[in-house]
């Protein structure tokens, strides 16, 4: 088990590192785009590190240097990479907890190799995406996450499982392809794929809309949300990894990257995004209220919460953007906890149908408490981490004089409280239905408890993460920070 973990970590680092090498070499060997300007693929790649690599270094040292290099880039480089701290900051530790959880969860199924390989590829691609400063590379990593999630969702080989995996892949691929048209249009407009070089460009609304289709489909926002609840057929750690911690945040992150720090974010687009986010938050919260499948409720809750993140970004002020980044982190932690609790319940009780569950508080006390704590964070109850991010996002709407949006999202927050309490009551309180299944795996429970504790600590010591978000945002928006 320990070696599997080591391999997972090493492979992830190596993947990031390898892409950096290819990048830096490409930039040099094509010699500043003699023929094809887009091949000046600039990445935060430091040739000095690569030269040292040539002298021969062990995998561990290489990995450490990759991390060093990435970190130095952050010290030195512009906003975009700085903003990148938040998603991996939230995604990687959460991802590690999730992988830990799956050691027990996955242990009695087939295709474990595929599972771990794809999980590592997925996280590696996520890192690559965060650190690429070129639209082509962004797209490359974007689609690699798609391939990995296709295989992860299709982990069980039943007929519907495989179909749902294809559905998720096709819907996100549709979005990505539309986005690719947008990327080509940007290239036609600016003559470059380099994000740094196109800074400050004012995009026509049509091109922004093309990009938006891709971002919304990856983030499972209205009207592309249906694949996400369906993908709940996947094993719980996969849903946690994809739907809570990382995958759906990619869309939001790239949105921030493109529209906050690169292009001019015009008024019309801002209103469109905020409206879509509002509708998405309310509709999916309503869906979560009536669903009876444990994981589908949590999945709809994710769709709804993503709306809040988009709202924060669409408000266009520093408060909203910082709130959104904080939201990515806090929601990732808490929602992963909810999905993993769902996994524990599902695996031990043998069903995810909440009408057939009840009274599990007695047999699963730790899971129940951890679930409740994570749920508090998602609801936005102080002093949990989720409170601060939700507060910042909604107060940003008020600050931007968008009272309607503020009200809509307050209603969304209320619905969040309703459906999460409903879920908790049905599953953990009340009269037991059938057998009271015990918590079998200590490791799995420990993971959930850890996530719950992090959600609480993240709120109590909110200064540290919000400082991170503030610095990232001040650099992204170009304000002296």
């Amino acid at each position, binding site marked *: 088990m320990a070696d599997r973990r080591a391999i997972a970590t090493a492979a992830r680092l190596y993947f990031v590192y390898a892409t950096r090498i290819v990048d830096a070499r490409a930039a040099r060997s094509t010699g500043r785009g003699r023929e094809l300007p887009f091949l000046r693929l600039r990445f935060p790649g430091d040739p000095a590190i690569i030269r040292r690599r040539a002298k021969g270094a062990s995998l561990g040292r290489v990995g450490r240097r990759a991390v060093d290099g990435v970190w130095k880039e952050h010290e030195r480089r512009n906003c975009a990479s700085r903003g990148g701290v938040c998603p991996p900051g939230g995604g990687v530790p959460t991802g590690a907890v999730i992988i830990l959880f799956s050691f027990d969860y996955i242990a009695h199924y087939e295709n474990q190799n595929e599972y771990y390989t794809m999980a590592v590829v997925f996280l590696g691609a996520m890192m690559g995406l965060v650190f690429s400063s070129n639209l082509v590379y962004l797209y490359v990593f974007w689609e690699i996450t798609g391939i990995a999630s296709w295989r992860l969702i299709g982990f069980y080989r039943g007929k519907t499982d495989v179909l749902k995996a294809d559905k998720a892949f096709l819907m996100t691929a549709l979005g990505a392809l539309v986005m690719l048209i947008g990327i*080509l249009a940007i290239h036609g407009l600016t003559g470059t794929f380099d994000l740094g070089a196109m800074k400050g460009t004012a995009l026509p609304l049509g091109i922004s809309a093309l990009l938006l289709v891709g971002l919304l489909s990856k983030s499972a926002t209205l009207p592309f949300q249906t694949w996400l609840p369906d993908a709940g057929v996947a094993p719980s750690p996969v849903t946690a990894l994809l739907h809570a911690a990382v995958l759906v945040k990619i869309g939001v992150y790239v949105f921030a990257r493109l529209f906050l720090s690169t292009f001019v974010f015009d008024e019309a687009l801002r209103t469109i995004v905020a409206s879509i986010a509002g509708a998405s938050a309310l509709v999916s919260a309503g869906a979560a209220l009536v669903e009876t499948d444990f994981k589908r409720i949590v999945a709809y809750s994710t769709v709804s919460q993503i709306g809040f993140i988009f709202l924060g970004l669409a408000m266009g002020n520093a408060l909203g953007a910082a709130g959104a980044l904080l939201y990515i982190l806090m929601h990732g932690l808490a929602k992963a906890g909810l999905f993993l609790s769902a996994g524990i319940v599902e695996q031990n009780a043998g069903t995810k149908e909440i009408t057939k569950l009840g009274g599990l508080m007695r047999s699963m006390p730790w899971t129940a408490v951890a679930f409740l704590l994570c749920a508090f964070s998602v609801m936005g109850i102080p002093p949990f981490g989720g409170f601060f991010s939700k507060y910042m996002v909604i107060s940003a709407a008020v600050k931007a004089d968008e009272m309607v949006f503020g009200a809509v999202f307050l209603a969304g927050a209320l619905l969040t409280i309703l459906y999460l309490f409903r879920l908790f009551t049905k599953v953990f309180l009340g009269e037991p239905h059938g057998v009271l299944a015990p918590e079998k795996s200590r490791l799995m429970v420990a993971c959930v408890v850890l996530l719950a504790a992090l959600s609480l600590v993240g709120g109590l010591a909110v200064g540290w993460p919000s400082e991170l978000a503030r610095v990232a945002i001040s650099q992204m928006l170009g304000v002296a920070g």
Partner: protein
Amino acid sequence: MSDLLLLVPFVAVVLLYLLPKRARTAGLWIAFGILALETAAAFIDRFATIDFGLLAPLGKLLGFHLATDGLSELVILCTGLVGMAALLVARRTLEDENEKFLFANLVLVAVVGINGIAMVRDLFSLYVFVEVTAVATFILIAAGRGDHVFEGAWKYIFLSVVASVLMLTSLGFFLLSTGGITLDAARTGLAANAPLAWIAMALFLCGLFVKGAMVPFHGWLADAYTAAPAPVSVFMAGIVTKASGIFALMRIAQSTLGGATPGREILLVVGAVTIVVGAFLSLTQTNFKRMLAYSSISQMGYIVLALGGDLRLGILAAGLHFFNHAISKSQLFANAAAIEKQLGTLDMDEMGGLGARMPVTAGTSAVASLSIAGLPPLAGFWSKLLIVLALWNAKEYAFAAVAILASLVTLAYFLSLQRRVFFGKPLEKWAGAREASVGLLVPAVALALITIALGVGFPFALKILMGGGA
């Protein structure tokens, strides 16, 4: 060097027949060796300039001369790789020694034709070599054993005859209007906007559309690929159709059309229609090889579409897609051969869960499928990106959008193929199925590795390609 590429396979065919009957088992390996040399030749620096003059007298007599450039190298490389894969598949799937010997011989004959197509510089010789390739291919298909062999071969012959007539007529018109049939003479005629020259060009293009199975002349391809024995479909899908139809189009677009508007528009429309129709036809298939065949039609549409874009980038993109598709599609047909050998059927409705029994076949086919569907970081993504970029640079926005969105349909049918064949619950019926033998896995794994390596290390490959001067 270029003359050797024609003479060596030709002489080898003759010599193979002089072998005593007992030694004929070596036929496959001799052909394999020749193709390995051919692959190596593509990597020799400036091999174009080395000419032993062996064909000079013949050239003087018939008025043709050979010249190689980056595009020729590309075809020669693909021929070598695909041919070797086909021979390896033949070794494991053809049962009769005599069949194997015949296969090796005919592959060498076809290689003479393909090498000729790659290097000639006039339309008449192009036509002759296209016919040489076609004749070898007819026999290859017809030598199969299935029920539909006759139908497949017959459709191919019949439509090829139509193509020949079109091309011969066109040659006559070219002689009338421009007084010459070299590519340069044709170019001059077209540039002067001589109506007869344009009619001649349109006829020649139509002939090549038949050979390359462009919609609406695609009727023969699915039957031919499906009916052909496994190694023949590997060889045909990998290189034959592409060299005799698509490569000839690339050559003409590069040296004759020169970006002139009417020619460009023909290529754009035919390419786009082929992409879409081929992809949707593929979506409805239930036979493994038939789905791959329609997918081939669609993907060759991409190559033709690229030729209608920005000329320089378009040719490069077309060449790259040519290579990627040759590699990935012949690999998928090799996967099909492995499955057919295990199950005895290619009906996808009867399959399911084979991934558990044949993990290597499943994994390699997923790589090829995703590459053809244009997903990064595999090779197919880069060539498609270059294609749409070439179109976008030529301001053909609508065609670029069609090309991009058709990728979704491609992805859809490949996902459906993967789902029906490899994923899903393992069926009781195929409990006896095992992973294919090493002999069949070697070509599949090797080709899949090429796809991955080219995708991940694409910038280096591009540098070589551009240095090679397409």
